[in-house]
């Protein structure tokens, strides 16, 4: 896949400042008596890819809307690009790119018109927009659909258009709320490829996801959120090293038996998780454990060994799966 949208790094070496691009201290969001975000602290540095990982309802989107300077914080301190969203919302938004959870393209307009109109909201002059749009269409691999209406486009195309749209103002931070939810695997990979390019061009990415593979692919650092709280923070590798073992042995004994067998293999692992359909044994050497299980005369329907993932971290921290 080639693209002529190639911002590349600026000729000047990036001047690293110690000021974070986003800084939140004790940030909360309440809707009536419901507290969606509970006094969380985090900061994002320039050029970083930062993720919020968590299940639906964890408070990820509420956090993103506060960072996006559209939803005021209920309490706590938030600075985006050094500015206070409560007083300088428009100025902050003029420097952000936003990919919302639900596409909000104008379905009755063409692909080109959607980009043009959006650029005008930022006050970008018409002439500049014309060449900018061409580059963005190229980047989003939508050049041949420029004059088509948005409505009949596939989900993946619409998503790419939404991302292209979010880049119209050369944003300093790109906020992506569940960028690939609902897309088929191929469309997700195309999208990841595009985001990966942006990351390498130095765009600061902030994204939410409930997919571990997405977090592992795109995030330098992430926080795990649950029930409005941050329960862990680190790089994907750090989180795995800190919270779970290196490998996981998965045993399936059949729905009724899993619970009962757990006791019989508990001593073989650092920790055992009993799920409805399988047992997860957290171990350093999975193959050895599978052999040990066989030697005890236990015959699981299936047994496999895999590397521990963020899913396991999440399970460990919250006692629940990410995608239910």
């Amino acid at each position, binding site marked *: 896949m080639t693209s002529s*949208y190639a911002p590349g790094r600026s000729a000047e070496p990036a001047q690293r400042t110690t000021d974070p691009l986003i800084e939140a201290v004790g940030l909360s969001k309440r809707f009536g008596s419901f507290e969606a975000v509970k006094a969380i602290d985090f900061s994002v540095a320039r050029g970083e890819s930062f993720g919020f990982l968590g299940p639906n309802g964890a408070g990820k989107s509420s956090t993103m809307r506060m960072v996006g300077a559209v939803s005021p914080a209920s309490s706590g301190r938030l600075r985006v690009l050094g500015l206070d969203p409560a007083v300088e919302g428009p100025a902050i938004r*003029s420097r952000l790119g936003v990919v919302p959870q639900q596409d*909000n393209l104008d379905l*009755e307009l063409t692909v080109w018109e959607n980009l043009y*109109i959006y650029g*005008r909201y*930022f*006050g*970008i002059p018409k002439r500049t927009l014309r*060449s900018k749009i061409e580059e963005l269409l190229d980047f989003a691999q939508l050049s041949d659909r420029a004059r088509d209406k948005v409505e009949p486009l596939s989900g993946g195309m619409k998503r790419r258009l939404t991302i292209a749209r979010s880049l119209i103002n050369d944003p300093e931070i790109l906020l992506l709320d569940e960028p690939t939810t609902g897309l088929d695997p191929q469309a997700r990979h195309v999208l990841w490829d595009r985001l990966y390019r942006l990351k390498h061009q130095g765009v600061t990415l902030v994204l939410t996801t409930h997919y571990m593979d997405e977090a592992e692919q795109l995030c330098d650092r992430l926080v795990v959120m649950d029930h409005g709280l941050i329960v862990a923070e680190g790089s994907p590798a750090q989180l795995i090293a800190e919270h779970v073992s290196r490998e996981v042995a998965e045993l399936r004994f059949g729905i009724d038996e899993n619970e009962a067998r757990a006791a019989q293999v508990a001593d073989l692992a650092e920790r055992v998780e009993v799920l409805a359909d399988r047992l997860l044994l957290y171990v350093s050497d999975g193959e050895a454990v599978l052999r040990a299980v066989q030697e005890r005369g236990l015959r699981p329907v299936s047994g496999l060994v895999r590397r521990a993932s963020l899913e396991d971290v999440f399970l460990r921290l919250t006692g629940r799966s990410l995608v239910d």
Partner: protein
Amino acid sequence: MSTEASAPALTAGRHTPTRHLVRAHGGGVPAMFGYLLTSTRPYLKMAALSQLGSPVLYLLSLGIGLGSLVNGRSGGQSLGTSYLSFLAPALIAATALQVAVGQATYPILFGGFKFQRIYFAMNATPLTPQQIASGVLGWIATRTAVSATLYLAVVACFGGIRSVGALLCVPIATLGAMALAAPIAVYSATVETERGGFAAISRFLVMPMFLFSGTFYPVSSLPEWGRALAWLSPLWHATELARWASLGSLHLRSGIGQVGAVALLGHLAFLTVLTVAGVLLTGWRFRVRLSR
């Protein structure tokens, strides 16, 4: 703090830099008008056709058809002018009202907030909820004024204009229409789920207003309660003003088109208060809904 340094860069390849061109306060209401104009373009032919076709039908059937009945009997005498010239200013006001209310219902709730969610897209840019609300209402007023102008042109073709003052029908009809459409926009920006509210507005608010606001006959022909109700109808106030503008200078013996200075101010004040309240409350509801 350096902002350009690690920018997705402004040098390599075919990159067109836009960052330095972005305005901290965005494109504002004019950019919204650009959008609304673009989104209307596909419907322009259809809209123009219906906005010229409907007055032709109304004026043919009521102005000419019913008019020949009215003019031929004592009606013409008591009105002191042709039925067509009596009816036309009121029809302009009534049609403007329908156009504005139509724009202030489904497009706001469905296109703006619920399904396409375009207001949320706008709000992610420097545009503020207040600007979005102003743009939407300003656009409704503009479209309404265009419809009223087209209507007036058709009336002129039918020979229904008797004075230059009739030109004032356009701003009057627009104000009258916004006096109802702006408060309805508050409702459209507030309801979460549409459960027939819009149909009810059209059936139980707009339609009765059309029938009982003195469009087809002076409200003085109605019993006491009818006149009291008419007083509450923005359309009656707009109709009175439109007739004053079109026929007032003719000093008809029937008194039609005659509005005293106090009444004139009263009509204007009533419509202005409703419009201003509607505009302010719409801005507030947009802010609440977009900043959740």
